[in-house]
């Protein structure tokens, strides 16, 4: 059986080597040094580099700000994961909920037809300008944030960490969930290394940042 053949080749290849302990993996920066405000600013400037837009909102005005952003962009027919809070959804927009239970979700061709998708997120990284989705109830299945041409992501400011190691620290308990790092709209540089925004994934990404008014414990 090939499994045994390959594993035996590997074992015999390694049998002669000396197994001195490897140097400890350390020395790189683990934690951030910025203030809360600087961290949010860094995140914003990174997203700006990628061609994504960032807006701010207070908790009280969240619903209104979501609606305004969408209306201004003429995104009138939106899809969202079924777990998104009702309080985010203004009546001036048409909303369709997508279920994550196997077999109950909307067909892909229908998802593709919406003007955009609204979701929450699991975490964000300021240094790399990344949003992390682990496809929970407020983030939806993976196809939902992929097929529509526009993604509006709602992010609590305290979900933003400064460094990638801090982010992986937060993801430790949920490592086996499907995980997607999104750093700006889809892009390519395959033709003459010219960066072109927008290929197959959403071509437009907006992030609505939501002040840390809410205490940490009540976060989803």
């Amino acid at each position, binding site marked *: *059986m*090939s499994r045994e053949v*390959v594993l035996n080749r590997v074992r015999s290849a390694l049998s002669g080597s000396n197994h001195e302990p490897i140097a400890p993996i*350390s*020395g*790189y920066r683990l934690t951030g040094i910025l203030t809360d405000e600087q961290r949010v600013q860094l995140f914003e400037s990174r997203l700006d580099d990628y061609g994504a837009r960032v807006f701010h909102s207070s908790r009280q005005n969240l619903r209104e700000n979501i609606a305004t952003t969408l209306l201004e962009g003429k995104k009138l027919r939106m899809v969202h994961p079924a777990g998104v809070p009702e309080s985010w959804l203004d009546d001036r927009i048409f909303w369709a909920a997508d279920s994550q239970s196997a077999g109950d979700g909307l067909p892909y061709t229908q998802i593709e037809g919406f003007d955009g998708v609204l979701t929450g997120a699991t975490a964000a990284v300021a240094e790399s300008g990344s949003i992390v989705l682990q496809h929970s109830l407020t983030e939806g299945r993976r196809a939902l944030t992929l097929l529509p041409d526009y993604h509006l992501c709602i992010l609590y400011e305290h979900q933003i960490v400064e460094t990638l190691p801090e982010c*992986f620290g937060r993801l430790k308990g949920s490592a086996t969930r499907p995980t997607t*790092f999104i750093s700006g709209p889809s892009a390519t540089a*395959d033709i003459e290394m010219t960066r072109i925004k927008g290929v197959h994934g959403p071509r437009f990404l907006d992030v609505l940042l939501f002040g840390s008014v809410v205490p940490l414990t009540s976060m989803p």
Partner: protein
Amino acid sequence: MTLVTLDPRKAKPFPKAAAELLRDTQLRKNVAHATDVIQRKRAAVVAEKEDWQALRSAGAEIRKEALRHLDTYLEQFEQQFIQAGGHVHWAEDAVEAQRIVLGILREAQATEIIKIKSMTTAEIELNQSLESNGIRIYETDLAELILQLGAEQPSHIIAPALHKNRQQVRELFSREMHLPDLTDEPAALTEAARLYLREKFLKVKAAVCGANFLIAETGSICIVESEGNGRMCLTLPDTLIAIAGIEKVIPHFSDLEVLLQTLPRSATGERMNPYNSVWTGVTPGDGPQNLHVVLLDNGRSHVLADEISRQTLQCIRCAACLNTCPVFRQTGGHAYGSVYSGPIGAILTPQLYRLEHALSLPYASSLCGACYEVCPVKINIPEVLVYLRSRVVDRNRGKLASVFNQERIGMKMMARIFLSPQRFEAAQRMARVLEKPLVGKDGWIHWLPGLGGQWTVARDLEAFPAQTFREWWQSRPKAKGGRQ
């Protein structure tokens, strides 16, 4: 269209292939432009990381640890992957991997597949094999699409169509996609590809991908990409087959906190590429429910056995060594006669073929060391190049044994000369006389007879100086006082 083979068993030796490609001035312009742009971007995002050297060291240690206990980590990955609902296959070589993939597709009744760019599938010539068995393949990475439509070969690990410029791509897309009014703006070309592929993403039920990392601890696969074609292939089809070299495993999920900092910066000069997908087996209601991974050896265990050249397998395929290499920047990738080109290709390819093919590649380097300096996992490529050269020489020792072999005679003479200072000085004086007819007005030798001609075919040689260091030392005014 250039006729290039990237099968190391059939490819021309590097000096021959390179000499031909160097005459293609358009190709040289395209390659120089693209590598300049990536290098500039990389330098900027690397410079802002104060802990860059620590990240490189950490990346190297992660990859070394994985290789040192590769059997353990592979078994751990296999166990976790199966537990998460996936199927694991092992392939000793390219042919077995092709057979496994075809078998899975037949069972799933798939007659067409969408595909993410993967060096490993190029290595095993998966497309040719599947096509000859009636499977239709749609490459979905923009560069791979360009190559597929133009029936061309990849020339770079990260940007495989880097040898094509926008006018060439426009011409190709316009013809193949029937778009007579297409302009050569990269944005318009990208839009054309988006529309062309959208329908395939929604329709095709099976996909093939490679893997950037296999995570032993969790049984997860990580795919790093930019365009979103990867995410399409990873989530929309019912069947997904990942093909990964056995060396792609890393021990822990958190190892990504290092590698996802170094890989995008080294590969595309970005702080982070647009999309990274990490997933573990089958998730009900989300993504492919029929999930397979093929673990491919194809010569890797052989590379692993040698403790000096084992580091070759640390590679995370960022291609930074290609972009910085003064040889690659002149010749482009096709001269290497392998899907793995540039410095990493020069050490990986001959080893994957057990030093039976591609033996000119370890010499396709000036040993300047730029590749080692940029490598995000600290592969000492010059060290391995020199080591492989010595093995190529050892291998040819039989041929060299002939008393009439020019190289052998030359080396023996050199050995005798270097053994004695008198002989060395005499040889220098003699060379200064003998070289006279060969030295040009500019003080350089442009042509040498016989075996020496192999040097001057691509390089010039500076004439001996009128006075050697030893002669100057003898004749210098003696210092007054002080230490002798």
